[in-house]
Structure formats: C-alpha cells, structure tokens
C-alpha cells in the first residue's frame, strides 16, 4: 500500500509540488506581509551559484551539507544587498538588482564551463524537472522514496515547526518591528531566520521547480490570501490551501494539455490571484466598482430629493419636478436620471402624483436633513 504510493509516479509528482507549495506558502506569508517579497527573487536566483559551487567543492548535488551550503548563498545575497544599501551609495532595490544577477551570471557561467555533463543544465536551472523527480530515489524505512520528496518533506517539517513555535514572535515582528525590538524579540534575528529557511526551501525545491517558478509558490498564494482575509492565521492557512489547490489543478491541466507541469502549477497560483483580485468580497475590483456605483446612485438620490424639495410648492413645480427637468436642468443622462428615480422610489423617498414627482414623508425628512444646516426663517 505505502510502497505503491511511493511507487506511483503521478502521486510523487503531485506530492513534490504540494510539498514545495506548502513549504513556500508558510514562509511566504511572512515575507509578503513584511514587504520583503522580492528578496525571494534574489535568493532563488543566487542559490544557483551556491549549488554549483558546492557541487564543484564536494562533487555531490544532494545531501544536507549541500542544501545548507547552497542556501548560504541566498542569505549572502541578502546580506550583501543590505550592506550595499547601508553604504548609501545605492538604494535597496538597486542593491538587490546588482547582487543577484551577478551571482546568477557567475553560476550560469560555471555550469556552462564545468558542469556540462552533469544533469543540471541552464534550462533546468530556471524551470526544474518535476516530471522526473521520481527517478532519483533513496531508501527510507524500507521504502523507495524520491530524494526530492524526502528532502522537501524534511524542509516542510522544519518550516512548520519554526512557524508554530515562533508564531507570536513572528506575528509581533511582522506587524510591529519597533515594539518587538523594544521588547527584546530581536526582529533582525527572526528576519534572517525566515530568509535562511527560504533559502533552504529554495535549494530543496530547485530540482523540482527551478529558480524562478519557486518565486510563484512563495509569493503568490500568500498575496492572494491577503486579499481575502486580514487575520494572520487566516493568511497562512489560506495560502497553504491555495498552494495545494494550485498544484492539483495545475497537474491535471498540464496532463490534459501536455505542457510543463511545474509551469502549470505556478500559473494556477496566478489564476487564484486573478480571481481574488477581481472577486474578493469587499476589496475585489468588482466589489469596488459596485460599491462606487452604489455610492454614486445614493449621491444622485440625495441630489434628486434636494431638487424636488427646493421646487416643492413653487410655481416652477410643474416644470421642475419631472424626469425632463433632471435631464435638461441637471444635465443628467436619461438612464442616470431614471436610475436615481427608481432608487429613490425603492427607498420610499418619492412617489408619482398627478404626473409629478413628489416627496414622501421620508423624502421630506431626508431633504430637511440635507438642508438642516440652514437656519430656519424667523
């Protein structure tokens, strides 16, 4: 039963994707909320340099030493960028953009010079080979387990323990680093702890999804979750769920269309984001547009009530309290005027009497509230 699970190619591919997605989303939630999302970009590029250097030194591609060694390059990128920015010669964004392409370029050159015959080529560096992760296995508790699954499983456990154990500290340093520092929580240490784990995760995920798609797994699900909820635990749980859903949907679609599996999984995180951006309740673009429309209609309603009130019981009433007057005098397009009348009618503000629009008691009250600031004549 277990053997057939670890022997099943689709299960292993899917499991690898989910492990990458969940490990990434756990850390990504904090990176996105702290405004450090682009450090992921820098880290995931520069670990390429670390991976190749560690390979040149040890002759091994996988193993704990290799993962940690390569992950150091990711942290080094951040340290170098921050040092450079602190010298005030360049701004932080330019510092990031100077350090990681240089390390990445060096890594690519080293690969093309020394590593031509190894299974890592420059395209794998970017795209990964999630379809082939089941080829390299290791025996664990009598089972043939893909190395990627074993490594990523270990990384997931570490990330999960880190987030659960340091939940309060992470929360405080994320939302109020100043207070956290004053209370002695060492926000700097936690910052580097998160970045170190991100680097480790990036190295572990590298074989499966490559340097760039990894960014999607770290940034996009947490950003999507942040559009949908404001609670920290909500963001983390939702981000994890969205990652898993993206992996499953991406895998199914990739098989159907015969396209890159990792690419499709990462693309699906983008689909969730687009849906949330459009449809998120309250903050989504559609909700914003509807809210704006409703606000404009309310405003028109008030203008209509004020207009009717001004001309009520005056000689001009026959001319002014009509639909025509709204179109001609207020220069409202007819649909807008009609919509305002309908809305006012629905809200029981006005009624049609003898062919004229007249205010109902509720409408009169609203008009008086509008004009209430005017002193009544003595």
């Amino acid at each position, binding site marked *: 039963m277990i053997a057939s699970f670890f022997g099943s190619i689709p299960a292993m591919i899917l499991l690898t994707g989910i492990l990458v997605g969940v490990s990434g989303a756990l850390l990504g939630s904090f990176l996105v909320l702290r405004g450090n999302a682009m450090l992921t970009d820098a880290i995931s590029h520069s670990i390429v340099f670390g991976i190749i250097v560690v390979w040149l030194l040890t002759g091994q591609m996988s193993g704990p030493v290799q993962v940690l060694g390569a992950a150091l390059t990711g942290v080094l990128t951040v340290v170098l960028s921050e040092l450079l920015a602190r*010298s005030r010669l360049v701004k932080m964004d330019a510092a990031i953009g100077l350090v990681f392409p240089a390390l990445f370029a060096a890594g690519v050159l080293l690969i093309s010079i020394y590593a031509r015959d190894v299974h890592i080529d420059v395209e794998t560096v970017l795209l990964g080979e999630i379809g082939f992760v089941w080829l390299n296995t290791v025996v664990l508790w009598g089972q043939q387990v893909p190395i990627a699954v074993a490594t990523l499983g270990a990384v997931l456990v570490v990330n999960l323990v880190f987030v659960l154990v340091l939940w309060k500290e992470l929360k405080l340093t994320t939302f109020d680093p100043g207070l956290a520092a004053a209370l002695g929580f060492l926000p700097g240490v936690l910052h580097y702890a998160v970045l170190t784990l991100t680097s480790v995760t990036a190295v572990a995920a590298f074989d499966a999804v490559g340097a760039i798609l990894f960014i999607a797994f770290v940034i996009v699900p947490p950003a999507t979750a942040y559009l949908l909820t404001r609670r920290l635990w909500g963001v983390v749980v939702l981000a994890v769920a969205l990652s898993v859903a993206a992996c499953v949907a991406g895998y199914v679609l990739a098989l159907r269309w015969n396209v890159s599996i990792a*690419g499709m999984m990462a693309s699906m995180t*983008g689909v969730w984001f687009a849906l949330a951006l459009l449809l998120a309740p309250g903050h989504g673009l559609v909700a914003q547009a509807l809210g704006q429309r409703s606000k404009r209609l309310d405003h028109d309603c008030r203008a209509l009530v004020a207009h009717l009130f001004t001309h009520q019981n005056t000689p001009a009433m026959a001319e002014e309290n009509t639909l025509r007057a709204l179109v001609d005098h207020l220069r409202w397009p007819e649909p807008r005027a009609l919509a305002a009348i309908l809305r006012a009618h629905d809200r029981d503000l006005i009624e049609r009497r003898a062919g004229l629009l007249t205010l109902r008691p509720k409408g009169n009250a609203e008009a008086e509230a509008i004009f209430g600031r005017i002193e009544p004549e003595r």
Partner: protein
Amino acid sequence: MSALADLLSSGIVRTVLIGAAMLGAISGMLGAFAVLRRQSLLGDALSHAALPGVCLGFIIAGTRDLGSILVGAFITGALAALIMMLIVRRTTLKTDAALGIVLSVFFAVGVVLLSWVQDQGGAASAGLASFLFGQAAAILASDLWVMGGVGLVALALVLALWKEFKLVSFDADFARAQGFPVTLLEATLTVMVALAIVVGLQLVGVVLMVALLIAPAAAARQWATTLGPMVALSAAIGAASGAAGALVSATTRGLATGPVVVLIATAAVVISLLIAPQRGLLWQALAARRARARISDGRVLTTLQGLAAAHDDASYPAERGMLETALGARAPSARIAALERRGLIHPVTHPPETTPHWELTEAGHAEAASLSGKPAPAQDEGTR
C-alpha cells in the same frame, strides 16, 4: 593586437560586438532613470514578463520572426506593468509583492507556452528557449537595424522630454503640482524600460536583463553629480561592458555572452563604488581617516599646550607617558611623527632622562591656540 584583429575579422563577432554595445548604450541610458526613480526591480519583472510574449509572438506568426517576437514581448511586458500598477493602486499589497506576483506568474505562463510550442514541434521552435539567457550567436546583421531603430526612438524620447523626465525622476510630487502629466511621463519611462528589454532579449535573455539596466546606471552615479553626465556616462559604461563582454565571450568557447556582459558591468560597478572620487568607499574611508588624524593631532597639540600652561612654561618638555596620561589615550607614534614633520612640535632631550620629550614650537603654539582658543603661556626665560 593581431588576435583582436583576427576576432574582429569574423562577421559574427563584429555583429555581436556592435549589438552588445548598442544594447549596453540603450539600457544604460534608460536604466539611469529607472535607478533614480527607485524602480530598479521593475526591469526584472518586465523582462520576465516578456517570456509569454515571445511565445505568443511565435505562435501567432508561426515562425521565429524577430519582429513579431519582439512585438509580443513588448505587449506582455506592458500588460505586466499595467497589472502591477493596478495591484499597487487598488489593493493593500506592497510594491514588492506586486513585482513578485507579476514576475513569477507571467514567467510561469511563459514556461507553459514554451513547453506547448516545443511539444507542437517544428524546427523553428527550437531556438525559442534561447530567449531565456539570450543567444548572441543567433543575432543577424539585419537585427542590428531593429536594435538601432529602437535605440534612436529611445534617444529621441529622452532628448525631447529631457526636462520632464528630469523633474519626474527627482521630484514627482513637485512635477505633479506644477501640472506636468506625471502619470503619462511615468508610463512613458516604463514603456522605455520595456523597449530596452525587448532589445536585450536576444543577447542577454529575459533573466539577466535587469543587470544591464541597473549596473551601468549605478556605476555612472558614482562619477557624476548631475543628470546629463550621469545618463551619458551610464550609456557609455553600458556600451563598453557590452563590447567587452562580446569580445571576452568570443575568445572562449562555451562562455555565453549575456552572463559575461553582466559580470563585466558588475565589475564596473564594484570599481566605481570603491574608487570614484568623493562618493567612493575608499575615498570615504580615506576622508574619515584624515578627519580622525586631524582630531588626534589637535588633541595632542592642545594637551601639550595645557601641560605647558599648567607648568607656566611655553617650552615645557613633555614625556610620552605624561602626554598620554594627560590625553587619556595612546598617542600614536605616526601622529607624533606627522606633527614633527609639520614643524608643530619638536623633540628635545631632558637630562638626566634619556627618553624622548616633546615641546610645542612657535607654530605649534599658534595652532594649539587657534584650536583651544587659549593664548600661549609666556616664554620661560632661560630655556631659550
């Protein structure tokens, strides 16, 4: 020198050399504005977003026609910029998250399209993946005209809108208050970054393009204090990096042009950061050292002056240990030697002691007086 002549006699090398120099000049010129406006990583996001455009251009045109591929890249790049703006303006997500989302999702879609195109087969699709890292060898002489055209458009835009770009780069709020169409100008600058990326796709690819936008500008900023020279220098450094990178990669098989150009541009940055006058790190360190030395010298002088005043003897000889006790710190021998050289103190012997002693000279008293604001004590008779 003859090796260089041999290299240049090859048509491909010449084409790559000219192409890389042109690319460096264009991205250097446009990158200067991006760096000043703190939008360095925008180039990174836009260049990754060009990948799906490359594939779509290929799918629609059906051939590996550079024109349609570049148009595709430009369109998806611009779309990415729009979506980024939308995310930043309409959600509570920060700029860096928006950059990361656009970068990774567009790239993922590009990867999917790339795999689809390759699956559909066709010999023409084979070189499409080369846009990831660029493939200098694939560049044709006719492509140079396209690059030159884009470069001229960019140059014309920069010259025509010079004043506006300058204002937007340094004080966008002031520009807005003055009634300049800031959003339009910012959009134009973004479009120009996309143009530079389109030019760079073939040579350095989507992944490393960001370095070519940032590095020449960061290097130029070290040497120039005003916008005009900075932009010109940035273009020059970009062109030089491109040309040098093309030459180096032509000498060795297996050295891809893009990474080499990027590393050379980075080296230019490192050198500039270190040695540029005034702003360079070495200069700063030197200036800090000088300031420390000046303060240290001043303290030695005023301490000697204080000792002289306390003993009511202008030429009071102070022994090192005494000087250091009064100073409350170690007096570096180098500083004492420097003060001697400047003729502010001079060593004397003070029999029966054999250790060296120092006393202030006339000039030393004047200097100490100007530092401490106290007059020199009266000369003690008999010592002079």
